[in-house]
């Protein structure tokens, strides 16, 4: 077969709103060759690549502005603090225009969810309470709740899958009941691609007085986010999946909740007054940001948000719908390939999981890698979902702004070859 370069010219720029051919030039890593083939990066659901603008922002930060934030009188400290706090305002805009002080910087979505589990959870959850999640959650939105239930005696309930890989809401009025204290759901499944319509579920949750949390790790990089529209109390996301550096993510929380929560980590910056007997705490968001933050990563995340907002999240979503529709169409022509996830691109994002009859997902991924395709294989940190699907692993190709239809074509060719190679 041919590498992915051939058709990557004219056909590349597929969407009205996104000049894909042009923006690909912003991503230096796309010049890499892997095993002699141009890199085709189909693993953005795990972590996205970074545009020069983000990399350059990091370099510029370290070459010209670095100092520790918040406590310094000197010019560099003031500059670093300004740059860091400006990203808080930007992130607040990105998630729908909230008060910047309700945006807390964390390492990633995982830390954001754990912060809620430790700080809000241990104060508000006790024996007899119920926490509701779904079968399609990522471990980041399962493990903290399993552990909280172990500690408190609360019960973890789960919304099952329906036949279209969506949430089966037939029992929702039993699942959400007067014992329900928290409903924590992913807006987009990293393994199925499914987009969940959370607002109606959260409405029921609020009706019984429960608090709601959105795992937006997959959705936020790929579609518009508006916490008011989502009607959520908490929202977690990771910058590294949204063109940003590793090391920066955010937790959004409603002010009333954050104000009443105890701190999570203790140390510098989060305090008001420290004695050995008693500590009083700074106000939010600083209460939750102990120690020296990942300043440069946050500043770089700001550059990523600029880049995304400039492209327009609606345009990104349109591009991904197009490429996903194209991929689903091509893949469904292989009778030996099974797709796990909704067929309707209005109900799904750009992560496409599949298995190949008679070949293990790891072998498929390895085979594709030999042609330069970076896809992921495994349980995608969603073991309970895999169990529900009756598989131990899938191969997943996930698309982002820099991917083209011709890359999908090439992958399909390579897949057909792989099938022949491993066929027993």
């Amino acid at each position, binding site marked *: 077969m041919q590498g992915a370069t051939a058709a990557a010219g004219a056909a590349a720029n597929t969407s009205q709103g996104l000049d894909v051919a042009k923006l690909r030039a912003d991503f230096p890593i796309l010049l890499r060759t892997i*095993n002699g083939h141009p890199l085709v990066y189909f693993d953005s659901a795990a972590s996205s690549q970074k545009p020069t603008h983000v990399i350059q922002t990091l370099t510029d930060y370290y070459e010209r502005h670095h100092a520790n934030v918040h406590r310094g009188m000197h010019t560099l400290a003031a500059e670093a603090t300004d740059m860091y706090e400006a990203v808080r305002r930007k992130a607040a805009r990105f998630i729908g225009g909230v008060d910047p002080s309700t945006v807390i910087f964390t390492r990633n979505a995982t830390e954001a969810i754990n912060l809620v589990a430790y700080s809000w959870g241990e104060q508000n959850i006790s024996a007899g309470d119920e926490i509701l999640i779904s079968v399609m959650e990522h471990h980041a939105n399962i493990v903290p709740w399993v552990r909280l239930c172990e500690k408190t005696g609360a019960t973890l309930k789960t919304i099952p899958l329906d036949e279209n890989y969506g949430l089966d809401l037939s029992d929702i009025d039993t699942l959400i009941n007067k014992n329900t204290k928290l409903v924590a759901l992913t807006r987009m499944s990293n393994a199925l691609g499914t987009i969940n319509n959370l607002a109606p579920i959260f409405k029921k949750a609020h009706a019984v007085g429960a608090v709601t949390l959105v795992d937006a790790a997959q959705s936020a990089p790929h579609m518009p986010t508006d916490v008011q529209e989502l009607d959520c109390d908490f929202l977690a996301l990771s910058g590294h999946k949204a063109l940003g550096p590793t090391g920066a993510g955010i937790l959004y929380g409603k002010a009333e909740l954050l104000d009443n929560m105890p701190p999570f980590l203790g140390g510098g910056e989060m305090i008001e007054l420290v004695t050995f007997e008693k500590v009083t705490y700074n106000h939010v968001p600083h209460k939750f940001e102990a120690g020296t933050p990942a300043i440069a990563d946050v500043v770089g995340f700001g550059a990523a948000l600029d880049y995304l907002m400039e492209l327009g999240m609606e345009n990104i979503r349109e591009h991904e719908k197009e490429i996903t529709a194209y991929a689903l169409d091509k893949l469904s022509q292989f009778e030996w390939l099974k797709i796990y996830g909704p067929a309707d691109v209005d109900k799904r994002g750009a992560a496409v999981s599949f298995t190949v009859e008679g070949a293990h997902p*790891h072998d498929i991924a*390895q085979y594709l890698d*030999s042609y330069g395709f970076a896809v992921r294989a*495994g349980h995608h940190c969603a073991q309970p979902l895999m169990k529900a699907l009756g598989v*131990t*692993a899938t191969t997943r190709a996930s698309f982002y702004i820099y991917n083209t239809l011709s890359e999908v074509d090439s992958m399909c060719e390579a897949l057909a070859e792989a099938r022949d*190679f*491993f066929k027993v």
Partner: protein
Amino acid sequence: MTLPLDALYRDIILDHYRSPRGRGAMDSPDTTCRGSNPSCGDELILALKIRDDKIQQAQITTTGCAISIASSSMLAEIIEGKTLDEAIELGETIRGMMRNEGEPDELELGDLDALKGVRNFPVRVKCALLAWVALFGAIKDYREGNTRGAVSITTE
């Protein structure tokens, strides 16, 4: 094909993968061990019949990738007739080889030599080792009198 695939999926490996030896459950084994690599989803059960300190038969049931299937097939083939000490020694040799701690020569290894290529793919090493680690578990359990019930083990 001039791809790194050659180094990983050598013909001998593909042959074992396509027609694995020693498949299926075993009636009344003398010891068994369940091995899994949770992060891959690989799972296997290794069952041994042992007579006079020698492995008479090895049977394996498995879901896994080509590498783990091939490696377990080679194990089943080569291990029969070996004493428990010999089996462990061979297992240690394979483990050392996969961890780049030793370079056993080709003759000694037979088909197993084909696993050397896996070393270039560090994430796959645990696939190749799964059956061997299960072998250690099964023998240990046997020697301790099978007191722990069905033992489980992982290479992760």
